[in-house]
């Protein structure tokens, strides 16, 4: 399960199904977690091969056509922000990036889901090189945004879902504020809107077997926080940029 950038304790309007399935009693109540793995010295050949295989599988299964609209793949530091419709979102966006970019792009994922079980943890830590965020224990002074910024350093990119949870209706909901703080703290990073179409039909909420329909991933032109732009204005502009890719 992928989570939004900053589900602060205050704004957290818990989406009951999501949360219930994710809170495992076995999870110890950790402090802000240290991110394991991290691929600091490059992934091992096995992990690379697994990454390639998974990317290919995800592309075949989700049948994604990939469009870059007024936008180009680039290895510069970016934050890809997308609408959230399915568990597959992060993997499919990740696999629709060219390989050189994929290797420096880290999805942001929920720790409680992705650190459960050996396979999942190995995938998250070694293959996707995900940044796992503990959303059950978010400290005011140690926000996920800081953690993400620390983790990506000055080379890596991020995949985030600012809506917070997977939308049920198919409408793109309000964005949470994390994207704004990311943009404010690192004004040099390009924010690339991504629109995911039809993936919620491939693997809807609450299902575990996929149906191989065709999806479409559209990347839009990057945007930045304007000087003096208010938080809500910026978040709405970012949201509109994702909706605009729907056509």
């Amino acid at each position, binding site marked *: 399960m992928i989570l939004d950038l900053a589900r602060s304790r205050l704004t957290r309007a818990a989406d009951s199904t999501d949360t219930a399935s994710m809170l495992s009693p076995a999870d110890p109540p950790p402090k802000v977690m240290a991110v394991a793995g991290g691929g600091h010295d490059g992934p091992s050949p096995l992990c690379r091969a697994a990454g390639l295989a998974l990317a290919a599988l995800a592309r075949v299964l989700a049948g994604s056509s990939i469009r870059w609209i007024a936008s180009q793949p680039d290895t510069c530091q970016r934050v890809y922000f997308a609408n959230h419709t399915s568990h597959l979102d992060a993997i499919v966006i990740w696999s629709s990036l060219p390989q050189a970019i994929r290797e420096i792009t880290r999805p942001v994922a929920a720790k409680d889901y992705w650190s459960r079980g050996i396979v999942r943890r190995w995938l998250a830590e070694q293959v996707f090189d995900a940044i796992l965020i503990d959303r059950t224990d978010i400290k005011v002074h140690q926000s996920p945004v800081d953690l993400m910024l620390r983790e990506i350093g000055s080379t890596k990119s991020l995949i985030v879902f600012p809506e917070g949870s997977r939308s049920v209706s198919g409408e793109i909901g309000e964005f949470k504020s994390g994207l704004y703080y990311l943009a404010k703290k690192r004004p040099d990073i390009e924010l690339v809107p991504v629109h995911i179409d*039809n993936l919620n039909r491939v693997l809807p909420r609450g299902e575990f077997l996929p149906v191989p*329909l065709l999806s479409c991933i559209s990347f839009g032109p990057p945007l930045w926080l304007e000087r003096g732009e208010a938080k809500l204005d910026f978040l709405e502009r970012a949201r509109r940029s994702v909706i605009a890719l729907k056509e």
Partner: protein
Amino acid sequence: MNDIRTIALIAGVLALLTAATAVGQFLKRHPDRGLDPAAVNTFNLRLRGWWIMCTVLAAAFWLGTTATVLLFGLVSFWALREFITLTPTRKGDHRALFWVFFAFTPLHYVLVALNRYDIFSVFLPVYATLFVLARVAVAGDYKRFLERTAKIQAGLVVCVYCLSFAPALLQLPIAGSAAAEGAGNFRLLFFLILLVQFADCMQYVWSRMLGRRLVASAVSSNRTWEGLLGSAMSTALLAAVLWWAAPPFEPWQAAIAGFVVAIMGFAGGMTMSAIKRDRGVKDYGTLVVGHGGVLDRIDSICFAAPVFYHMTQLIAGIGPR
């Protein structure tokens, strides 16, 4: 495939494609001929699709009957994907769709490969239909129930069931093909696809030349009655000329087959146009750039294949076992 008829058929098609490609390239280089550049472009894209179709078909045949059945199975799978992607489904259909894609479609093609006509002729239309109805009901969402199940069933029948009659032609026990095992059956399949593609083309050509009365202007803006008649006549003529390629047919029987195939192909095109119009799209997919989707290419074959199969059965005097 080392007999003279197969070689003649393939050489003829290759020569035709090569000539057409040359003409297409010439027209592309000389845009001052007073021809619509968009039409030239469409023509060239179509040609590319045919080259791909031809190559894949030849490769599959060279690998054998099972490989050909498998190839058509993959095409069916992809076409069904495009079909269901375009049709709105609800979450309650998800589990039913999973079984349709991963159990019924592959199993049907296994039955085709095993030549179990007695089972595969009812497997999808009866058993898959019953399953889909029951599975969607059990999922508990009754909204527009009949509409939703009908969509899934229509997809299965057109994309999977009907198309599978094309590779099933390879299994027909045609008298007189014992000498060159399987070559006659392969020519039969090739004959069908050739006729369907030719009918599509002729439909376009005749509509452009003589087309006055549109069949259904709301559904298709280029299919006319004149085009349909012209295409059926020309396809009948081509079929009669090529009768030697299709084992059990006499020239006049081949002509009738050509006529019927052209009309069925037309019906397929109209049907898919109606669905596309309803969904507000032009093409089904983006697999081969500019060539629409897989479903756009095979819609006429889907409709023509079962009719052609049963006509062949009838003429060859092969009853259902």
